[in-house]
């Protein structure tokens, strides 16, 4: 399975402030009654963006200055709670291609990586600096350098952290593991044979 090597993401940013932003907030469960992931982008952060009558609340994603953003900034423990892959799917289908946060919930991080979305870890300070720069100039181009773990914008060149396994998978074009997993058929069978509970 030939996958794109994701060595960097380049685009505009938008800052969605807050810690412990959970996946129920990212995509409310009532929008998950579907058998495909099609159309999920429309419901991203729905309840924090929309009033009950469908009109817009004040939210960075409703701010037209940031409507082309492909990089999302946030806080600690981003994506906590439910394992729903619908959350990164909604982010991807909305248009996001990279995330910069202080930390991530584990299952969410893995889901993003599997979809080819790099998740960068940066300090609170650096995220504030980025957010201020974006606020001052929403058209600012940001480069997330996966291989070198750096974030560049304006004259800034910040260090960041991209977990090694994710970094290797993304930049090596192996972020979707199915091909590699399927290669291990005989080794898998050996392990299965050693587990009595697997017997038919």
């Amino acid at each position: 399975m030939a996958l794109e090597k994701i060595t960097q993401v380049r685009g505009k940013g938008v800052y969605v402030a807050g810690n412990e932003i959970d996946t129920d907030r990212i995509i409310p469960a009532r929008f998950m009654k579907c058998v495909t992931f099609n159309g999920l982008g429309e419901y991203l952060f729905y309840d924090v963006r929309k009033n009950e009558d469908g009109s817009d609340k004040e939210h960075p994603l409703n701010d037209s200055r940031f409507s082309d953003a492909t990089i999302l900034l946030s806080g600690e423990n981003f994506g906590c709670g439910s394992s729903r892959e619908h959350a990164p799917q909604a982010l991807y289908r909305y248009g996001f291609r990279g995330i910069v946060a202080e930390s991530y919930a584990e299952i969410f991080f893995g889901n993003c990586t599997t979809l080819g979305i790099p998740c960068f870890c940066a300090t609170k300070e650096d995220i504030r600096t980025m957010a201020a720069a974006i606020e001052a100039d929403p058209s600012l181009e940001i480069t997330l350098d996966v291989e070198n773990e750096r974030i560049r914008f304006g004259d800034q060149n910040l260090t960041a952290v991209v977990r090694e396994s994710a970094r290797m998978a993304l930049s090596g074009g192996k972020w979707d593991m199915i091909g590699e997993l399927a290669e291990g058929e005989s080794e898998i069978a050996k392990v299965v044979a050693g587990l009595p509970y697997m017997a038919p």
Partner: protein
Amino acid sequence: MSQSLFGKVWDAHAVKTLSNGQTQLLIGTHLIHEVTSPQAFGMLRDLNLKVAYPHRTFATVDHIVPTDQRQEPFADPLADAMIRELRRNCEETGVTFFDLPSGKQGIVHVVGPEQGITQPGTTIACGDSHTSTHGAFGAIAFGIGTTQIRDLLATQTMALAKLKVRRINVNGELHPGVYAKDVILHIIQKLGVKGGTGFAYEYGGSVFDNFSMEERMTVCNMSIEGGARVGYVNPDEKTFEYLKGRPYSPSGDEWDTAVERWRSFASDPDCEYDDVVEFDGANIAPTVTWGINPEQAISVVESVPTVEGSAEKEKALVAEALEYMKLPAGAPIKGTKVDICFIGSCTNGRLSDFEEVAKYLEGQKVAEGIKAIAVPGSQVVDLICREKGLHTVFENAGFEWRGAGCSMCLAMNPDKLIGDQLSASSSNRNFKGRQGSPTGRTVLMSPVMVAAAAIKGEIADAREVFGVGELANA
């Protein structure tokens, strides 16, 4: 070499190291449900792949199923489409489906254990983060995303990084009126919602030794709310006793061999953990959440925090939570009016939960204006409760007794909050909007505490309401 259970089970299931440094881990038991699986089966079809081990894959329907008016077609066409899709996928691939007509349908994390599918020394995955529940049996069990469901269907393996292990000891004795739910809420309050990220939690100590399997499941269930993807208890005689005679448990000549093998997976007494944390059971009180994540919890005798009184780094989240929950800062949580009372979910929807509440419901009545629902975690739990007459106790008290499913935990079926209703809930998440209304408010607590709230119409100390033991100083 001395190892924890996690290390032993990991080694027994590791296939090889992958190019990204992660391990290709065999997942021996794959549980699926209707919400996170359809896209995975779709991906399998697109890739022209078959299910590698259909006999190791088990399905149920739980999230979207109505808890009343369950006749098909469901009133919600989207829900109806989802159950039909799961049925089709299982028929086409040979996966066992505990469907509605089977008598075995229910919440996936209730069904696995009661069918004897959940066993010690196994790896278990499901597209649902509360899969950690099954760790109560000494399994490595965790939630996964839909793309990993595809990987498991196709290869029975997935890529995973090895977790560190934190041993959590809860010693001493719990006071009367303090339950397993309070223990895990307490642990999460102390260690935080991200304290467990990168860790498996191994729970032990005298409190866990004394817990039943269902109590161990309640604790393991909410490990993920503390950031720990995996949470487990070492298998012991209680584990084996629970499993004996269940439909998928080993039987006959195989039983004794299996038990010996299971016993061998328990952590070696001298193994090293990456971290060890100690708790005294006597310090745990009936606990309720007051905020918008499971860590924002207090004893029922305490007051809602104030922004001024909170640590600097907590202030923003405390302010956000106070605004959303509309609870007066600094006021006692006891006395907060409730609208809806929900007993059920994969955390607290098992037989012992209903038995314990039924003890106290005799002769009591749900307060005027309160909607109270009791939702058995599975058709089997429902049947046993009915055989014991428990459902009548609930109904006589004014609870609605429902059919099995996830119900009001998460708003994918008709059981939802309306407007800013406040629910006293035995479920596991109190996030904004979790229970179906964008302004709905959730307060988590034990089933007995939900019952007390239902009787009083407000958050109450169940020990006072029901005269449970001595009132402990919290």
